Each structure stands twice: as C-alpha cells, then as structure tokens.
C-alpha cells in the first residue's frame, strides 16, 4: 500500500468536492428557475434527481437501451413528472399562499418518494459509468472518468440556460415573469405557461444531475430530501435567484462537505452542508452574489 501524501489527499478531496458540488449546483439552478418565475421553493426538487437516476437505470440497465437513447428518454420522462407536478399539485390550489405552496411541494415530494419505493424497492441501484471506470491519477489523486461527465454536464447546462434566457423569446418571457409577473401579464405573456415551463425545465436539469451522479454514488428512492436541502443550501449560499451564485454556491458546498468528511468527521458528512446553510441564513441571507434589495421586492 503506497502512502498518499497530504497534499495529494487534499487535492483528492477538492476534486471529489467539486464533482459532488456540480450536482448540488444543478439542483440549485433548478430551485432558482422555479423560484424566479413563481417565488416558490420547490421541496420536491431532489425527487427529480432521484427519479433521473432510477429511470436511467431502468432504461439503460433494465431495457439495455444505449446511453445516447436512454439519457434523453430519461430526461423527457422526468420532465413530464415536472409538468405533472405543476398541473396536479401546484396549479389546482385555489388560494395560493406561501404556506400552502410549500405544503403542496412537500406532499408531492413524499408521494413521489413513496411511488419510487413501490416501483424500485429500497435497494440502491448502480449504473455503468459513461466511459468506463479506469481511474486517472493526477498529482496522486484518483479521478474517475465519470467526474468529468458530471462537471461537463454542469457546464453544458449553464451554457444552454444562458443561451435560453438571453437569446430566445420564451427565455426572455420567463425572465420577464421573474422580474414582474403582473407587468409580464400586461404585455401578453402567459404566466401560467411560464410557470409550467419552469417546472419542466427544472425537472429536466434535476434529471441530468441524477443521471450523471448515479454511476458515482448509486441511487435509491430516499435520496431526494437530502439532495434538495443541500441544493437549497447551495442556492442560498450563492444568493437565491442568482444563476452564477447557484454554480458558485454548489461548488463551495461540495468542497466544504468533502473536506469536512475527509478531515473532520465522516459520520457528520451530511451535517456540514446543512450547518453552512444555517450559517448563511443567519449571517448573510442574501448570499454571496445575491441582492438583498431584490429579495425585498419578492412576495415571499
């Protein structure tokens, strides 16, 4: 057994942290899309990630579909779940208040979790890595090829979203809803459709996160809640509503968790991210890149 030097160990934690952080960043982006359009925090955000992983296992392992087919099929299916979530749980609420909307997304989240347990059972599932499992050694740190896929897909998601919001009419309409829903309605934007679209988009990104992370950390039915809280922590850390903030928050969150688990205590691995979340809420609720003035305008 060769001894690993302390620096390469630190490097290892950093790489692992950035990979996990990319997943949190994608969850955080999903939170922001829905929050910006509807001002709802979707507590079921983590369930999209869980469904992404498990549905991918069904298509890719169960039905032996090739990766290039299984991946988009999974994203489409989870997107449908996102649309159903809006249609069945959010839009039927007649007197929407922050309280009832939170409760509706919590209800949806345990419902989805229960159905996933019904379909897949309680055991975790593995997914073959996209390009094999032969690790690369850099500076003494062992890097799985899948790490690059996770980080790569975060970059793809970010680029695709910035093109969508800056260059397309629908994207601009969504941003308009985010700025001022009433004004958006006045200029003829169908706000209900934009809300539906925000759930669809956010579900799709959650699915991408789930599909890419499953080969590294497996996936089981009850992973959603923890992913949602950590993703929300990332969104808050970066500044709720800010997309660059979500990326930055996610990566920092992942790194803190990885260093915390490696250097302090692995039993408290899940607690570090949550402590960061509480600390941000207490000391700087606007986050790193958030704007406290904007958060005052928001209804909720």
């Amino acid at each position, binding site marked *: 057994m060769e001894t690993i030097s302390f620096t390469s160990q630190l490097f290892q934690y950093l790489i692992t942290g950035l990979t996990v952080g990319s997943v949190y960043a994608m969850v955080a982006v999903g939170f922001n899309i829905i929050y910006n359009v509807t001002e709802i925090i979707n507590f079921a955000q983590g369930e999209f990630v869980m469904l992404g992983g498990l549905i991918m296992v069904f298509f890719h392992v169960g039905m032996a579909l090739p990766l290039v087919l299984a991946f988009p099929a999974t994203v489409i299916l989870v997107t449908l779940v996102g649309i159903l979530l809006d249609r069945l749980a959010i839009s*039927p609420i007649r007197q929407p208040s922050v309280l009832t909307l939170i409760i509706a997304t919590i209800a949806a989240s345990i*419902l989805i979790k229960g159905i996933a*347990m*019904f379909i897949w059972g309680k055991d975790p599932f593995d997914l073959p890595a996209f390009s094999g499992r032969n690790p690369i050694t850099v500076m003494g740190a062992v890097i799985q090829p899948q790490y690059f896929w996770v980080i790569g897909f975060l970059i793809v998601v970010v680029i695709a979203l910035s093109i969508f919001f800056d260059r397309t009419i629908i994207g601009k309409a969504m941003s308009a809803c985010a700025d001022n829903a009433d004004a958006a309605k006045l200029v003829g934007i169908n706000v209900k459709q934009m809300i539906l679209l925000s759930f669809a988009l956010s579900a799709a990104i959650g699915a991408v996160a789930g599909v890419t992370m499953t080969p590294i950390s497996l996936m089981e039915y009850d992973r959603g809640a923890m992913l949602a*809280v950590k993703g929300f922590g990332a969104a808050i850390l970066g500044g709720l509503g800010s997309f660059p903030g979500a990326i930055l928050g996610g990566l920092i969150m992942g790194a803190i968790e990885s260093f915390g688990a490696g250097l302090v205590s692995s039993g408290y691995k899940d607690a570090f991210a949550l402590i960061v979340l509480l600390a941000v809420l207490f000391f700087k609720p606007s986050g790193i890149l958030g704007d406290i003035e904007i958060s005052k305008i928001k209804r909720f």
Partner: protein
Amino acid sequence: MLQIAKLPIAIFAALIITFPWMAHQIPVIDHYADIMVFVGIYCLITIGLSLLMGYAGQISVGHAAFFGIGAYVSGILTTNYGLNPWICMIIAMLITAVIALLVGAPSLKLKGHYLAMATLAFGIIIFIIFNEEIEWTGGPDGMPGIPGLSLFGFKFDSVDKYYYLVWAFVLAAFIFTANIIQSDAGRALRAIHTSEPAASAMGVDIAKFKIIVFVYSAVLASLAGSLYAHYLNFINPSTFDLFFSIKLLIMIALGGMHNIWGAIIGALLITFLSYEWLHYFEEFEVIVYGAILLLVTIFLPNGLVGVPEMLKSWVRRKN
C-alpha cells in the same frame, strides 16, 4: 375564529375522562387507551404547531428535533445522572427554548420560506447527532432504561394512569393556548398572518411575536418528548426523523391549521391511521400520507374543521 366556545371544551374533557373506561368495555378497542396516550403526546406538539402555522403563518419542518431533544435530555439526565425526571423535563424545556431561539430568531426575521428550510436543515442535523453521539445517546440502537414517572410517591405505572397524566398536560396546554389566541397577542398573530405590512403599520412587533410563538411551540414539543421517553422507557433516533416532522405537518393540515381544534382532530386521525389502520400498507403508507396531504391542501384548505363552513357556503350557493 377568535372566540373559542367553552361548551365544546367541556364535552371534549368529559369524553377524554371517560374514554379509558369506555374502551375497556369493548375488547376490540381495549388497547385504544394506549394509542390515546400517543395521541395526547402528539397533541401537545400539534397545539403549538397550529399556533405557529395557523396563527403566525410560519411553517416548521423540524419539530421532530425539538421532540427528540426533550426525549433525549430527559433520557440522558435521568439514566446517566439519576436526576429527578420532573426537573429533567424542565431542564429539557429550557434547553429547547434556547436552541429554538437560536434557530428561529435569525430565520423568522426573514420572510417566507426561510424558516421552513432552516428548520428542515436543523432537524436533519439533530437527527445525525442522535445517531452519531453514541456515548450519550446510544446511537441508532437507542437508549433503554429510562425510568417512569411518579409524583409524591404516586407512580404513573399503568397505561390508564399515564393516560390521565398526558391528557392533563394536553388540557392545560389547550386552555393556555386558547387564552393566547383570545388575548391581544392572538389578535396580533392573526394580523401578522393576514398582512405583515398592515400589522407592522399598526405597531405589531412582527419578528418578536413570531419568535415567541416558535419558541413556545418548540417547548411544547420538548415536553411531549420527555413524556414520550418516560412512557416508553426507551427511545431511538428513528422516532425523531424528518418524516415525523412531515407527519406533524400532515396532522395540522388535515385537522385544519386555522383552528386549535384542528390540531386535536389531526393528531387523533393520523395517530390512529399510523398505529392501527395503515398496517395493511406497511411501508407504503408514505404514499397514503403524501396523497392525504396533497388532497387536503388542494380541496380542504381549512382542513376537516373547515368542512362544515364549506358545506354551508355550498348549500347557500345552491339555493
């Protein structure tokens, strides 16, 4: 619903007093007195939560943690240090009050979703601590040997005796909370729920009121936890997980969060569902809970206590 009628309280108290006797007459429901002890314990939590949600308009997804802190402080102090259980109960409530103040104060100054997420994160952290601090809590295996309760030599050592003890606490908490609702503070809380800017313009210190209600609800949950620990004589972390916090939420939503009676009805129904009627579903009961919560949120925004009002307005529209 600012006025709380006295007659229903008297009828309810009479029902509660005679229930164990009635249950023992019918063999099939003989064990219902035992379940009613748990209903009482959960009622203590939901009464506080209903004040927080229905009257202050705030949501907590972490009350399982306060329930757990009460149970574990009582458990640790009585078994490891041999302290008097009643003193431990009070210490637990004080500790919970301080923790609730620390968690609640910063997030209640913010709007909307923040308390929900802060309490969710807090609840998970506390759950991890219960599992990890094995020296203190016994870890996932739990903590056996917690003594029962006695007062001036009278031992609460049977189901019926404990039943009356727990329900005496529930009645006290109910009346105390009802008095808060009917006082100036209650009006201030309703005002906060209706419109924060308006309440604040009328000189209501919004943040202060919300924090007081949050701490009060946490202390009640802690008391419930202590009573739970001394009744079962054994606790383990899984009782205090995130799902329990959500179950509390379902109790409040099902009963109706704008009415203190909703807290009682919700706790009663959900406890009997989970202890008696949902065995058939085994672990898939979570689907049932999710469906109940979603349907109630969409179709019964005021919970079961709001049903008579809904029917009345429906009949009026028909005519």
